[in-house]
């Protein structure tokens, strides 16, 4: 593994694949997705609804619940200590300082949530238990982290089932005062750190007493409780108004830099990506169809889907006369309906005969770190070889 990576890699996800087994059939939510997260960077994952971007994040930190299942792939985390621990028992799960989390026992994997990975979600309201004060819930996250680092197998959280609480696992008598004064103080510090005014008073308030923006800050505070190395932020500002979104994005950047952590920012908003991210992966139909530096993807997009996305958004600084949308609709990812060709071919204005074979991820000419799952990465569009529409019976543009 290590030979292909970048020296600052912290996390390397390889060929991650997640399926959902629903009544309608098997849904290929994440299809052989690879990306890497470097030290101290913000990696963006952008896609429309149904592109698999959220499930990709959940899969990377092993939070996929039934009827979903991770069916393949590797998640290599750089952790010298862990690597040392497993080098003898499980040599195949260790590569240098990297450990493949997918090969580790569940308990060990879970104990990494908090200190290694944390996550914030789009809707802070559903991430907090409405009947506990915000301070208590953050203190609890602090407590869970402390206990987890002391004994990975004995933690239970009353915020379980509420967003981040899902990250935290198991076993304390309910009803007992659970958080120590120390954790409570730490919670107030965290609230202060994320810019909540009067943190001492606000800590004693309930989630419904917080505005959307303030609750989003509180969720960031909760996520920071374990001092994670990688924070996954799934549409963290989508539910917020634009002036509040701007505050939260500034906050995320400040926190990322102060803590020296890495952030994986998942969003549908190309503007948010451009403001925040060093590198970008574009997802379509469960696949990463293009990835590279912000400049490579935005200024030199290779995949026609990336080009189409960029052409679809109106520009606040320039009232372009006409938008150039991508025709048709996003596919539904049902395995039985997934064709064995490029998934974008039915909407692609440059589809050629070669696209009838499912393209591998390949480097874009001239830039090894810029890749696309598209024949155009190393070939030119040739109208002579173009596919005509009749190749796709029952397209959904109708």
């Amino acid at each position, binding site marked *: 593994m290590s030979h292909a990576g970048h020296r600052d890699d912290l996390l390397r996800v390889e060929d991650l694949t997640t399926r959902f087994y629903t009544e309608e059939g098997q849904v290929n939510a994440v299809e052989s997705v690879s990306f890497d997260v470097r030290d101290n960077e913000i990696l963006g994952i952008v896609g429309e609804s149904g592109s698999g971007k959220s499930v990709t994040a959940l899969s990377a930190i092993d939070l996929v619940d039934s009827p979903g299942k991770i069916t393949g792939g590797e998640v290599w985390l750089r952790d010298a200590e862990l690597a040392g621990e497993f080098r003898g028992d499980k040599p195949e799960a260790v590569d240098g300082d990297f450990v493949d989390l997918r090969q580790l026992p569940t308990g060990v994997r879970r104990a990494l949530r908090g200190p290694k990975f944390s996550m914030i979600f789009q809707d802070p309201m559903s991430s907090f238990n409405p009947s506990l004060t915000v301070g208590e819930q953050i203190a609890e996250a602090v407590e869970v982290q402390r206990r987890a680092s002391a004994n990975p197998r004995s933690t239970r959280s009353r915020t379980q089932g509420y967003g981040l609480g899902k990250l935290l696992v198991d076993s304390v008598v309910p009803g007992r005062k659970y958080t120590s004064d120390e954790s409570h103080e730490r919670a107030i510090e965290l609230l202060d750190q994320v810019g909540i005014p009067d943190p001492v008073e606000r800590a004693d308030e309930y989630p419904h007493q917080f505005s959307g923006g303030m609750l989003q800050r509180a969720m960031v505070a909760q996520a920071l409780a374990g001092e994670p190395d990688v924070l996954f932020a799934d549409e963290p500002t989508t539910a917020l108004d*634009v*002036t509040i*979104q701007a505050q939260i994005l500034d906050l995320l950047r400040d926190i990322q830099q102060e803590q020296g952590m890495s952030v994986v920012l998942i969003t549908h908003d190309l503007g948010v990506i451009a*403001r925040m991210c060093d590198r970008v992966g574009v997802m379509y139909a469960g696949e990463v169809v293009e990835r590279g530096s912000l400049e490579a993807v935005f200024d030199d997009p290779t995949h026609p889907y990336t080009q189409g996305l960029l052409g*679809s958004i109106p*520009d606040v600084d320039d009232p372009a006369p006409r*938008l150039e949308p991508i025709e048709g*609709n996003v596919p539904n990812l049902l395995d039985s309906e997934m064709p064995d060709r490029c998934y974008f071919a039915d909407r692609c204005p440059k589809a050629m005969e070669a696209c009838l074979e499912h393209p591998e991820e390949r480097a874009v000419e001239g830039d090894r770190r810029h890749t696309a799952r598209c024949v155009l990465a190393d070939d030119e569009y040739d109208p002579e070889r173009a596919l005509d529409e009749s190749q796709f019976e029952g397209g959904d543009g109708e």
Partner: protein
Amino acid sequence: MSFDVETDEVEYEGSLVEVEDLEKYYYENDTLFDRVLGREPTAVRAVDGVSFEVQEGETLGLVGESGCGKSTTSETLLGLREATGGSVRFKGRDVFRMTGSERTEFRQDAQIVFQDPFSSLDPRMTVGEIVTEGLRIHGLAGGEERTERAKDLLERVGLSARHADRYPHEFSGGQRQRIGIARALALDPEFVVLDEPVSALDVSVQAQVLNLLEDLQEEFGLTYLFVAHDLSVVRHISDRVAVMYLGKVVETGPVDEIFENPQHPYTQALLDSVPRASVEEYGRRGGTLEGDVPSPRNPPPGCRFHTRCPHARDACTKELPPDYDTGERHEAACFRVDADHEYWESEPLPHASETGEGTSVGGGIADSSD
């Protein structure tokens, strides 16, 4: 630009739609039980004295963040909610006093497309029935004719005639929004309120629907009130823009003026906040406004923006700024536009960091150079 007024009956002066001092209050703590307990009802001033006009053939963008009252404004001006005060004129006639045939006519001439393509279509009706329901209610076409009309409308909005017999759940979000648009067009309206029509859609589909709306406007000579929170979309589609904050319009003007020469500090902050999809955006800080929008239950006195405005001074807390002319058909409700206002002598509020000098805005009435 002038437009031929294509009505057979009414001649009117002024704009197609004229909204004046529109108010819509909701009351909380106003149940019988609350009254028994002697609780005072609290007024939520969702729309608090809003005025603007929409000219025939144009698109007016009504933009603001959630809770600013933009959707309530549009629903109230159509008479879908009862106004607390103010008036709305459609072709010169007072909408709230219309009766009989006048009212029926207005109900045909003015239509609305809602944000949520999932909840705004009756799941038990076929798409054909949904699209032509207005025709049925108004007794305008029956049987064969109605079916034909449904098919025409569906094709016009980019669906297929075959879709008339299907049900809404069989369609994607973008397709459902097309159905909602076809429904609004069935009665040949002149004026269509588009209430966040693309905000539930993915960007690739959003662009399709925006293009469709533009085509339909041109083809049928429609007038649009486009209500949205997304400034990029508003810039793209509007001819003129009205910006709302806490139940009031704070700035109106031609679209390029609003986006290139905004006069109100709130408009400026909104524009600053928007993340641009280009590499130059990288690392830019957009959080120029602190704090949250205050509750419309208890709006701040004076200028409603003073609790967040980076230029706020003591004078802003005392008096509500009137709409100042700042250029051709460009108005802004901020004292900074008035070079002689006592604002300039009063003390900056504690949260307003700078002194108010040396910024690009205010300090006199802007020259209207076009």
